[in-house]
């Protein structure tokens, strides 16, 4: 079920009303209330996921059960070695399932090509279960955190299943940590009016970014990328810039909808994006882009490898490991690995010179406008990100290379003119501008429609209506699926 579908518009109010009125209010005296409410979350989440393909519900249930069981076994382990064995087994099991569905065919194909072997009968050709990378990493974080003693293993299987399958973030994150989300399912949730209203506004802003910005950009981007050999340099550059905003609108829009939806159920999810295109260097960009995945790799891979407190050679190794893994996490394609390597190369000079944490505050702190230096830094970082997104979006390394070649041909300099004229994708350009202005003004807040601090009620209503009307009026014909569903 897509967030931007009519099915979800019907599903959400029904689940909301049942959650608060039936499973919270009417059976509030029962000692089973919390467990029933969590069970309802699991059922609703499985309906949400099963709408896409019910067969893969078994896979989520299996992953959830194994991780829950491993948590108990780790907790009961008498020695550290035994606990480590159970943790390793769970990691191997989860990553094995992920590898089977996501990477097996890729490795077989590459291996066969290398040794000139036929792949007949060797490929599984199974469809990739939606969100498998997200919930697998969430399950892994639980086992590792139990092993590290950061969280007590839970006996409540229903709460654990709700933690893994919570529908707002099931298929595309944020990748929650057990330390944050699981305790919320173990205690009674209270409805908070202000949080719920803020959640609705965040959903609205997420829909704006997804439907208005990303889907309108997609129309142009898909057209250009599918015919990139015939396009001029300026068109290719424009499409690359559009894709940069498309993927941001798409993924951060999804995250906003997920976080906003969770707020309606009294659940607080972690922030996944923090205005990444206002970053002053690539290190800051990575602190603001897909935060839940970046911090996952930092906590469970980078730091165990020694982080930056090891020799320079090992820092280089560690940096490449997390960026390559991060790239590979996105999919079984050399383009994602190249994209990870590209960012590792950009990141290395900063970490080796100790400048990777130079910008930890918000840009233009205490000022409305940035300084010229900051503008230059942001544009450079943005440009570097655009280059990376071309590799990410291309279907092969060869296509990415040809795309770059095409971009550098005569006519690229016309791009600046072309970007500001309204002939191509005018609505996408207009709303990219609106999104950037709003996010700049709201950069210190949690999301673009965080109205805390705006006391004028009429203004708040008008702003909500304007955004809703824009979504209604400028949605493209077809409902666009979310890019990150494929990961």
């Amino acid at each position, binding site marked *: 079920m897509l967030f931007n579908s009519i099915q979800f518009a019907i599903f959400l109010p029904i689940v909301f009303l049942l959650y608060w009125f039936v499973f919270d209010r009417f059976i509030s005296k029962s000692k089973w209330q919390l467990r029933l409410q969590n069970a309802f979350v699991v059922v609703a989440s499985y309906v949400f996921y099963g709408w896409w393909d019910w067969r893969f519900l078994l896979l989520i249930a299996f992953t959830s059960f194994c991780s829950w069981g491993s948590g108990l076994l780790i907790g009961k382990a008498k020695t550290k070695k035994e606990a480590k064995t159970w943790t390793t087994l769970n990691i191997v099991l989860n990553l094995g399932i992920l590898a089977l569905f996501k990477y097996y065919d890729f490795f077989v194909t590459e291996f066969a090509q290398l040794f000139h072997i036929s792949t007949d009968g060797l490929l599984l050709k199974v469809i990739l279960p939606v969100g498998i990378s997200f919930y697998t990493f969430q399950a892994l974080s639980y086992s590792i955190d139990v092993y590290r003693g950061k969280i007590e293993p839970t006996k409540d299987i229903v709460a654990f299943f709700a933690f893994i399958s919570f529908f707002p973030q099931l298929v595309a994150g944020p990748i929650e940590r057990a330390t944050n989300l699981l305790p919320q399912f173990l205690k009674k949730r209270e409805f908070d*009016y202000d949080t719920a209203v803020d959640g609705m506004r965040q959903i609205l802003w997420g829909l704006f970014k997804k439907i208005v910005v990303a889907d309108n950009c997609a129309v142009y981007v898909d057209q250009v990328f599918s015919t990139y050999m015939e396009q001029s340099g300026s068109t290719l550059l424009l499409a690359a810039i559009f894709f940069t905003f498309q993927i941001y609108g798409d993924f951060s829009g999804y995250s906003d909808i997920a976080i906003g939806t969770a707020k309606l159920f009294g659940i607080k999810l972690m922030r996944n994006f923090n205005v990444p295109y206002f970053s002053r260097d690539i290190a800051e960009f990575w602190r603001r882009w897909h935060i839940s995945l970046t911090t996952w790799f930092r906590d469970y891979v980078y730091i165990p490898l020694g982080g930056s407190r090891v020799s320079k050679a090992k820092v280089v190794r560690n940096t490449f490991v997390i960026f390559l893994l991060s790239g590979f996490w996105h999919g079984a394609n050399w383009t994602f690995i190249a994209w990870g390597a590209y960012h590792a190369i950009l990141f290395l000079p900063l970490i080796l010179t100790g400048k990777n944490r130079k910008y930890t505050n918000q840009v233009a702190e205490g000022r409305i406008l940035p300084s010229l230096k900051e503008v230059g830094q942001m544009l450079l970082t943005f440009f570097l990100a655009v280059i990376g997104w071309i590799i990410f979006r291309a279907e092969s390394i060869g296509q990415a290379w040809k795309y770059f070649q095409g971009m550098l041909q005569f006519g690229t300099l016309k791009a600046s003119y072309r970007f500001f004229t309204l002939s191509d994708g005018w609505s996408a350009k207009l709303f990219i501008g609106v999104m950037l202005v709003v996010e700049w003004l709201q950069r210190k807040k949690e999301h673009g429609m965080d109205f805390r601090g705006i006391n004028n009620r009429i203004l708040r209503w008008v702003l909500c*209506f304007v955004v*809703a*009307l824009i979504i209604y*009026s400028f949605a493209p*014909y*077809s409902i666009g699926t979310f890019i990150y569903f494929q990961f």
Partner: protein
Amino acid sequence: MKRFIYKIIIFVGLLSLLTSIPCLVFEKRAKRCTTRHPYCRVNLAINSENINADLIIMGNSRAEYHYNDSILSEKTGLRCLNLGWAGYPFDYQYNVMYRNYMEQNIKPRFILQEISPYVFFDYFFPKYTIELLPFINRPEFKFYIELCPELSYLDKFIFVRYGGKLYEVCDELSLLETTDSLGEKWRNDFITKMHEVEKDTTIMNLFERFVDECKDQNIKLILIYSPMHTDNGEKYFNMDAFWSIISKVVKDRDVPVLNYHSLFGNDTTYFRDAVHLNKYGKDCFTRKVAHDLDSLGLIFVNQP
């Protein structure tokens, strides 16, 4: 909690109202529209009670733009009506335009059916269904409306029904007014995707049924291939296949076929784009058709 739910209801209610108003205005206007807007073509058929034309012209845009029914009426002395409908394949033309007209009028004596690969190619885009939406309650349109998957939910609610798509329809209207870029647009967006005339058996079967129906009702059917520019996009179609299909249909049915394909060659004086005549071309072509219909004895010019 109640306060939250009330506010959501108020917000959604007001939003529905706000979005319904322009839709309602649009729908009302669309139903009364008498311009060349596509909605108007549907209106023409729906509101055609007691026109009782002697001759009707059917086809897609190449019928709508190529035949001046006033000139044809003047030259032939017959009451002529152009039921051509831009952008729609034959099944739409038949089920929407022809059937609606026939239900409300005495059968015509003559039908001029414009033919070209475009008529029989099912180039269905969901957005075309939107043009039928003002008439959503007409049972004969429901089949087509249901073809648009986005409209399968709540399509009775006007604010959902039009979800932002009015503007696209208006864009299409402005596109129709342009004269220079259409040929290029057709080539780039549409024709290049078609390398063959895909024989759609559903449409062809309907067409054969229509030909038989005309014969049974004693309506004289004349098939006409109106002029195309030399650079007409036919190279993207398998024209041999097209003519063999037409030959198969007209064989043994005694249906005359007039082929004006090369009438104006590549003289741009007559064309607005590669596949459509301009107003001058339309008037010249209509006079030529009127003359030929008479000289060939297909209809009797200046007969009451």
